């Protein structure tokens, strides 16, 4: 179990090195990094504030990680999610999945992101020229999360 909710930035290379060191069974590592974009809906964004629910957020991330581990043969998983004030280009979230083969690592990383979008208690407020604006949940994210509910786990063929 590796789940961290923090204000600080993270170092993807250091996290990946720590995850894979001394683990000869790992043949594939997939990462997802989410960044604050500089615009949304055609409007410039000068920053973003991420609110979360301390304690409950960590438990939600741990539950999402446990579900990924139950679905795919993963050697390791890491979720780091930042909160607080962020600027365009800043990293928001890191998901790392390690497996013997690439399919499990890819599928689990996508699953984790889809569930993070809809099941982890974070709320985003963007700063725009017109003031602050809470980011609405997206129908597309709900649909992306829903597709896992009747999807069987994919296997571990390939690298």
């Amino acid at each position, binding site marked *: 179990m590796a789940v961290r909710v923090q204000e600080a930035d993270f170092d993807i290379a250091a996290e990946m090195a720590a995850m894979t060191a001394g683990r000869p069974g790992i043949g594939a590592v997939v990462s997802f990094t989410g960044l604050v974009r500089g615009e949304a809906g055609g409007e410039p964004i000068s920053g973003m504030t991420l609110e979360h629910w301390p304690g409950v957020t960590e438990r939600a991330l741990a539950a999402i990680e446990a579900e990924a581990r139950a679905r795919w043969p993963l050697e390791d998983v890491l979720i780091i*999610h930042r909160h607080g004030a962020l600027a365009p280009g800043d990293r928001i979230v890191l998901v790392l999945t390690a497996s013997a083969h690439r399919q499990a690592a890819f599928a689990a990383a996508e699953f984790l992101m889809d569930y*993070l*979008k809809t099941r*982890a208690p*974070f*709320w985003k407020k963007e700063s725009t020229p017109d003031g602050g604006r*809470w980011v609405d949940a*997206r129908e597309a*994210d709900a649909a992306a999360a829903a597709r896992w509910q009747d999807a069987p786990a994919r296997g571990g063929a390939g690298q």
Partner: protein
Amino acid sequence: MKLVYFAWVRERIGTASEEVSTGARTVAELVEDLRRRSPGHALAFADISALRVAVDEEVSDFSAPIEGAREVAFFPPMTGG
């Protein structure tokens, strides 16, 4: 009972949490009570289809019973990731 608010619910009500005494038996009845507390509460709870609720830190729905609950949280749909 402790009430906890996040994001624009918190902003509209003007506080992140408050203690209330209520005779409400469900979340929906609690919302009816809360709407009368202040104009900010009325605005926050104007459209409950835009809201989500957690009872004792478990996501629930508005028909859920709250008898014996220590904490009820209200917030918009989550937008993590």
